[in-house]
């Protein structure tokens, strides 16, 4: 193990030529085009897996407009891109969000993730799509005040839940997994879902049903209608079950209603935006900040189409521009992967 710690416990910054924000299809293909011009990248995504919208929103749906692939599903496209970019050895940082970006005196950029990781990089490629995937917030009056204190959308530390009365809301894998994981350590676990049918993995559903039969988990069919509590600490909720309402005494709640895309921290980085999209120069895909590029769904320019195909084109031009900045003075010759032995060497096929 390498000891790579600052006195304050944060790990040493990662120095690199390029950080790609977003591992959607466009961020992934950016790894390829940058790799061809010898730029190695670090890729950061808040999701725990690559593929962006393709793997999160429509993994099993067909896409018909990827050139030369008459039909491919969102997940297949992601898997194929991952295979195609493998030779370029990008480092992935999944489950982390880039929260801040600032320019350093030496003109490089310093980026920080919500997990406390720091990057120092010559270039930044914003491939953030529709923004970071964020958990949906149930429209319950006053819920904001409880978030992070007694209402959680994800769990970083299980201990937060030890000996608490926990309410889990939802019917998919997240709701079931946390019901099963928290049951042994919580004081009580109640699972609330709008119908007595669960989308989660059959095995988890079975385990949950067994715990309910043993009286170890309470299962309620209904919806939360109101929260009670003070200073961010929940003390109970009102739920509606059919025509009846009921009070539940709980002090921790985890709602699982899927994800939505929110622009998030990008708005605070001093990049020119137009209706939540980043304006770019279509010759280089550079933003108003030299060294910061924007590609894919997140950018806008006259004639922009939010297509994967267009994003692929954008990263090819972007990589040429980034190369001039990363290795100034280096002569660029235009080459084909079909015939260039140096490109083939980079691809590992020669």
């Amino acid at each position: 193990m390498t000891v790579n710690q600052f006195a304050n416990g944060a790990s040493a910054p990662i120095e690199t030529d390029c950080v790609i924000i977003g591992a959607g299809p466009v961020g992934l293909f950016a790894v390829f085009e940058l790799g061809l011009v010898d730029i190695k990248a670090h890729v950061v995504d808040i999701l725990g897996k690559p593929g962006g919208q393709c793997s999160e929103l429509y993994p099993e749906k067909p896409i018909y407009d990827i050139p030369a692939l008459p039909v491919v599903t969102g997940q297949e496209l992601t898997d194929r891109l991952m295979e195609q970019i493998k030779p370029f050895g990008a480092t992935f940082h999944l489950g982390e969000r880039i929260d801040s970006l600032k320019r350093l005196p030496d003109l490089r950029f310093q980026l920080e993730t919500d997990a406390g990781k720091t990057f120092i990089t010559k270039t930044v490629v914003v491939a953030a799509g529709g923004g970071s995937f964020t958990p949906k917030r149930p429209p319950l009056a006053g819920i904001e005040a409880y978030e992070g204190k007694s209402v959680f959308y994800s769990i970083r530390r299980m201990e937060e839940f030890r000996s608490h009365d926990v309410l889990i809301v939802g019917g998919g894998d997240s709701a079931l997994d946390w019901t099963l994981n928290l049951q042994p350590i919580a004081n009580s676990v109640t699972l609330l879902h709008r119908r007595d049918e669960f989308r989660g993995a059959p095995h988890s559903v079975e385990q949950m049903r067994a715990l309910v039969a043993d009286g170890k988990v309470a299962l309620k069919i209904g919806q939360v209608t109101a929260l009670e509590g003070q200073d961010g600490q929940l003390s109970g909720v009102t739920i509606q079950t059919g025509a009846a309402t009921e009070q539940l005494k709980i002090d921790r709640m985890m709602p699982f209603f899927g994800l939505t895309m929110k622009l998030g921290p990008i708005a605070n980085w001093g990049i020119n935006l137009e209706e939540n999209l980043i304006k770019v120069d279509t010759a280089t895909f550079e933003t108003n900040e030299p060294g910061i590029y924007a590609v894919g769904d997140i950018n806008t320019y006259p004639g922009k189409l939010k297509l994967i195909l267009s994003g692929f084109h954008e990263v090819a031009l972007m990589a040429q521009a980034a190369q001039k900045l990363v290795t100034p003075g280096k002569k660029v010759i235009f080459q084909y992967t079909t015939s260039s032995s140096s490109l083939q060497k980079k691809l590992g096929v020669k």
Partner: protein
Amino acid sequence: MAKITFIQPDGSQQVVEANPGVTVMEAARLNRVPGIEAECGGACACATCHVYVDPGWAEKTGKAAPMEEDMLDFAFDVRPESRLCCQIKVVSDLDGLILRVPGKQF
């Protein structure tokens, strides 16, 4: 042409004309009906096109298919008359359809 009425939580109404063949969500977006977010563009993958079908029309719109029923788990304040309107195709039979938009999609 089918006329569809959207009723907002505050009671205000908007009548939209839709061509048979499009989805109710598409008709709503074309006419900028507030509250129909349709983040996924009609792929039954986001549940932000949630509406309540007026009880008188439930039979004509039919019931949610299993995939839509699963997706409704991601909507809020789901009721027996809930549908995702990207999954309702406009047909001439739906002329006069009345839908209510929920308070918040997320």
